[in-house]
């Protein structure tokens, strides 16, 4: 089953999203901020999808996404943001970094299950 990385500084959100995805049969790992996320993406070439928050300590999610494309040169992994941010400027920056989608919190697994299935296939 496809591997998904959940990146969020909130353990509440990580647990909620990870439990939902595990319930759908995905293999899920977690990272606590963008820096941790980047390390895990580097070390795990089998990841199919990253679901990441934007506002996090140490490294934010958009910077992490930019580094995935520029530093890791990894165009294969899909990234979607799960965040309270909803500004067009932030989304434009995300698009430029090759992000595939944007979810404004709170997380509603059933609303995005179909899209996740397509992104990891």
């Amino acid at each position: 089953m496809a591997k998904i990385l959940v990146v969020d500084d909130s353990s509440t959100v990580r647990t909620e999203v990870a439990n939902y995805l595990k319930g759908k049969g995905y293999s899920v790992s977690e990272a606590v901020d963008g820096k941790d996320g980047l390390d895990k993406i580097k070390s795990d070439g089998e990841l199919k999808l990253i679901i990441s928050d934007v506002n996090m300590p140490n490294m934010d999610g958009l910077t992490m996404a930019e580094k995935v494309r520029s530093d890791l040169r990894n165009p294969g992994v899909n990234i979607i943001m799960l965040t309270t941010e909803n500004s067009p400027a932030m989304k434009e920056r995300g698009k430029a970094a090759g992000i595939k989608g944007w979810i404004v919190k709170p997380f509603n697994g059933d609303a995005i299950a179909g899209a996740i299935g397509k992104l990891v296939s």
Partner: protein
Amino acid sequence: MNAPCNILISKVLVLDEAERGDEMLKAFCDETGLVPIRPQKRAAGGVMSILGSNVDLGGILLYEDYGGSGRGIALAREIRHARPELPIFLRRRCVASMAGFDADTATLFRCAYTLDDLSVLRGSIEASVFSRIYPTDLVRDISIMTRESLRTLFTRCEVEVETPYLVKDKIIYGEVFTMIAIESAWCRGYMMLQAAEEQALSLLEPAPEASGRRTFRELNSVLGEATNLIWGGFKNKYVSPSGIVNTVQTQVPIVINHQRRYISFGSEDPQLCFKYVLKDRTRPDAPGVPIYQRFVFNLNWAPESFAENPSVESFVESGELELF
């Protein structure tokens, strides 16, 4: 109660024994948005006991002969010593002035009034307790955003909102769990969430481990995410991207004394407070658990520039995936 949230109130401690004026003061409080609280004991110990607990006061209405002839003045000194942030409004027997007081005594009071003319008291209350204008839309939206955020995270609970209120108190309820900076072109300050740990822990889903017990760390995380959701909603609705200033801005120390449950942001302006009561649907007989939210716009407050952010309009609902 789910209050309409379109008016602000403030609690005042009433230390008065006016038989003839009791109804008058009650009507005055109703008209001006004050919620009177009276101590059960007249003794100074009873009053100081109230002041030592969390009542989120906006001020104190004191009669100069409360507890006996002239004793109100001595009580005012005790109150000023213990809680200098609370404005004291003095009712006098005959004259609506500080006549007969030395300069030091006169500084204890915001105003002196008599029951014959409450306009003096009204003006002084407006100038000190209701001195800040909080736009009705803002107050209403904060309560809605917060209620939805708490409902999302405390899935077993109904969340009720009481009428928002203003406080000048610096003694807080329970523990401060979270604090986040609020930054925009028209306001700068902080938002805090306060709760009592034991009560709030009972609202979390049981842990999957054998113990089934949740710890304070999990409560920290849930209230942290609630704060994140509230600030996110606030920012999307009211903070224009062009309004975020990237230059170094003024900061002031925040004084926190845990032992005294005291917190000061360096401003004497009234703080905007909300009380949410969470009721567990699976335990209908259990008492509601309060969570307090406090906004302190101590660094900038320019409500004349308050406006809803037009860029918030979106065809994608919260929780849905917007594919690029």
